[in-house]
């Protein structure tokens, strides 16, 4: 019998080359792909938004976002994705589809999106300048604070964008892009950021 190995391969596996890119010197942008995460779409059943909210609070200890926000729970991030729906982003299977199914039984429909998206973290001095080339969202600190989220598009590609916790005093923006578009968007981001210099990496851990 043949030996089968089931290696996972990120949609950015080939396009992502770790190291510096573009202009030399101090990189203005850090671009990190976060790999191997669990992502579940939670959509309230008709008239069950209240029950879904209650179930969310009971399970995660925080309320589900009702406006475009990303809410941090102990070991998951709940990201608004539309009226009465949100995404659960986590690692290590603790909030994977099978684990959440009993939590939301009867109150929400769940759909696994773990492999449907690539997760890219954008930070650095030039993060806003780079994202301004890609997104029509106003990312001014006074407008798009920590935890702000948007379901929007970049380069004609649907993305979920949210601001994570600051790192070394700099804002961190996360974006989830559909996996089959990921390589295309990745190249567009690099094109846009080349003038600032980019440090490219990938990580198994959330930023």
């Amino acid at each position: 019998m043949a030996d089968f190995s089931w290696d996972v391969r990120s949609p950015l596996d080939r396009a992502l080359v770790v190291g510096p890119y573009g202009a030399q010197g101090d990189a203005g942008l850090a671009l990190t792909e976060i790999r191997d995460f669990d992502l579940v779409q939670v959509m309230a059943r008709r008239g069950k938004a209240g029950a879904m909210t209650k179930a969310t609070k009971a399970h995660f200890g925080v309320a589900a976002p009702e406006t475009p926000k990303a809410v941090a729970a102990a070991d998951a991030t709940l990201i608004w994705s539309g009226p009465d729906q949100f995404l659960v982003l986590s690692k290590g299977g603790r909030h994977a589809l099978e684990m959440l199914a009993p939590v939301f039984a009867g109150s929400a429909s769940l759909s696994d999106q773990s492999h449907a998206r690539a997760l890219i973290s954008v930070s650095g001095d030039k993060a806003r300048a780079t994202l301004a080339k890609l997104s029509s969202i106003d990312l001014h600190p006074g407008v798009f604070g920590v935890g702000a989220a948007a379901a929007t598009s970049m380069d004609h590609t649907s993305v979920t964008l949210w601001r994570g916790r600051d790192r070394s005093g700099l804002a961190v923006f996360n974006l989830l892009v559909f996996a089959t578009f990921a390589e295309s968007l990745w190249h567009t981001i690099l094109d846009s950021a080349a003038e600032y210099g980019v440090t490219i990496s990938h990580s198994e851990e959330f930023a």
Partner: protein
Amino acid sequence: MRGNQANRLNDGGLIDRSAPLNFRFDGKAFSGFEGDTLASALVANGVKLVGRSFKYHRPRGILTAGSEEPNALVELRSGARREPNTKATTAELYEGLEAASQNRWPSLNFDVMSVNQLFAPIFVAGFYYKTFMWPAKFWEAIYEPAIRRAAGLGRAAGLSDPDHYDKVWAHCDVVIAGSGPAGLAAALAAGRSGARVILCEEDFVLGGRLLADGGTIDGLSAAEWVARTVAELEALPDVRIMTRTTLFGVYDGGTYGAIERVNDHLPAPPEHQVRQRLWRIVAKRCVVAAGAIERPIVFAGNDTPGVMMASAMRSYINRYAATPARRIALFTNNEDGWRTAETAIAAGLQVAAVIDARPDVSPAHRSLASKGGFPVLHGSVSGVDGGKSGVRKISVSLTGGARAEVEADGLAVSGGWNPAVGLTSYHRGRPKWRDDIAAFVPDGAPPGMVAAGAANGAFGLGACLREGFEAGATAARDAGRSGNTGSMPVADDAAFSLTPLWHVAGKGKAFVDQQHDVTASDVELAQREGFQSVEHLKRYTTLGMATDQGKTSNVAGLAIMAAVSGKSIPETGTTIYRPPYVPVAIGAFAGHHRDENFHATRLTPSHHWAAEQGAIFVDTGLWKRAQWYPRAGEKDWLESVTREVKAVRSGVGFCDVSTLGKIDVHGPDAGAFLDRVYINAFSSLAVGKARYGLMLREDGIVYDDGTTSRLAEDHYFLTTTTAKAGLVMQHLEFCRQVLFPELDVQLTSVSDQWAQFSIAGPKTRDLLKEIVDPAEDLSNEGFPFMGAREVKLRGGLKARLFRISFSGEMAFEISVPARYGEAMARNLMIAGKPFGVTPYGTEALGVMRIEKGHVAGPELNGTTTAADLGLGKMMSTKKDFIGRVMAGREALTALNRQVVVGIKPTDKARRLRSGAHIIPKGETPGPDNDQGYVTSVCFSPVLDQWIGLGLVERGRERIGEIVRAHDPLRGEDYDVELCNSVFYDPDGGRQRG
């Protein structure tokens, strides 16, 4: 002073004499300084002739010092970067700059096309409508090419642009156009209020007219005040100052377009940098402080090199320390023009005379004249003696009828100022006439926008500061910012008196629009011929339609029209103003979206594996799909595809079908929902089963098809065609949210979640047994045709298995989470090795579906009904569904509709081509006898001949009939037989086996 810059002053100006720059104009070497424009450097070098005019090839010089320049257009740079019609007046000088004059042959000095002037009588307004009418066929072959050679501007590079362009969004409370006194004051007030401010200045230095005209503000010199103000603005965190940036348009919802010339001032952009950047600025408020444009007076010879706008002359002398002439005459109809005489005297130049069209001149200016020893002539310039080497003598018609002559090598002209009303008028605004300044001023503006300063008709320095400051403060307050605006900058207002004068009658050509060579007599001719409306005047004479959009000519043109038609200027009105304010390169609008990045691309989960296998990819919408996998020695695609088909039909192959749209349909009412969107029933589908479904548009035409499986009582997994994936998702969301909100159903796109492969061929089960956990029953009983369920794979991974077939073979589709997609492709190769597994591409997929008679995109073409496709029986009569009623319309159920049928040439060796029209035997090809066409073709390895599907009138009743395939596109006409559309395994035994 350096080299040949004979017309450079020894000191003063905003140029850096320690930074000399070499450049070439028409191959000749010159030098200038940092801070120069190409135009100012040419002025410093005494170059007066810079181009030839559009139609008459008349010698032209530099008229202005800004973006309104009609004449001094050059080809800048060379090779792929050659850029025609670049304004020398805004092009910044850089080391090694190369520029060439335009529209001359063989040289600027000796231009054979200037004989066009001799034929001037036939080049009048609308000449091409009148002169080249007959014979009609001569137009394309002879007249148009000849005119295009003779008339025109610069040459395009003709090569791909090597530079990159960017598009950027910006957001602010207040965007300000222009950094003159009004713009800077507006930025101060808004910035101090705490507003987020973007200040756009098209020049590379801030200050606007202050740079040339100076003045005293808050007791400081203009330069000191600008420096202090800019320092204050730069210290504010939310004020962004953008030089080399023109705000060129205003769009809906407070969105503004701006073009930033990031690296136009360098020979080539530094590595990784863009050439230009297009800004889309979303602003709550906008202050237009774009200033005003000095307007010429139209008189004979007004296009002679050396005739220059008075304000431009001040710019060259004061800002660039470059003297356009040694002995200057000034022709003005207003007080402001006199400043040029003051400037000339201060620079040590001679003033030959001031010709003032007004009845009175102020005592101050009289004493200036007597001190300077030059005459003040009351009257108008009626002619200019001079040619390509510039102005020599000026003829003056004195008030009262006498004539005078003035010897001068430069003539400064001021006809007053026109506020830049473009931005305020871009939403169909019509500016209003103000008699006191004889100019149009904004009359309202798009929502959120206000004009201030000279752009609003306030020409005094004090008024500009006041209006700008107040507009900035108000804009910030309206945007919700309430900080302390501090004190307003203060300056005196100079008096402004003007006697309107547009056109001085006289002998010789008097140009209104210098770039398009439109003369005053052209305007008069248009009026005589009935083109009195300004919109007609514009199109008939092409006045204002050149790259400068008539910035120096439109108002004069309509003033002349008003005079000859006996109407007032406001009665005559203005043409509609449209963006962009300055030309914007298409490359900037495209940004990164060019070449292979024209649009986003989508890659399948096995893309890189397929690339390793040497697959040839085809663009399918946004997707790159493996089309076939050539092997060494295969001579063409057909050989590869035929091998792939044979391998599947005789053994086993697989194909990545992840491009199909995939939608999770959840909820207690999922089945009821699908019953309404599909023509056939899905609520009756058992869990663990798949069913082919067809959905219609509201109008009864087929929308899309695909298989949908029931994975749980409240969970269906729906698939769409590749092409319609996004559209079907939208359609279903519309149905869910708008049409059937009462249903408890939830939709999620999972297209990207699953890597899905079709595995087909008689040895499919053998292959699957290798890879699927042995505990799973894959027998015909354990996993029958149209079964669908989750299975465990060897190694523990879970997959979904669907027993569906598009090829007509025994087949399964297997799906795994997408990050396992590449591993799946590799493992299918390993598992299938003993059975000769063959990866196949979309071509083989297409061949097998045609052999099997399955319809696809060419048949689901937006005109066909379910019955046309042979699927009419699927339309349930037990339920309602979208499109049911409209599908019953007479025309959609007519018996003579074109329906899907098989087609094969009677000559087995002949190639069938899609697009060929079906004509009955013995009939003449043409619309009357056209009975349909061939939609899909392939070479069938099974039948060893070309076959196809077609939409043919009553096709299914005519099986066996021989008809003609008429293909005028390829010049072919041959006999074909109409046949059953299912060419292969018509009873379906193979896929059920």
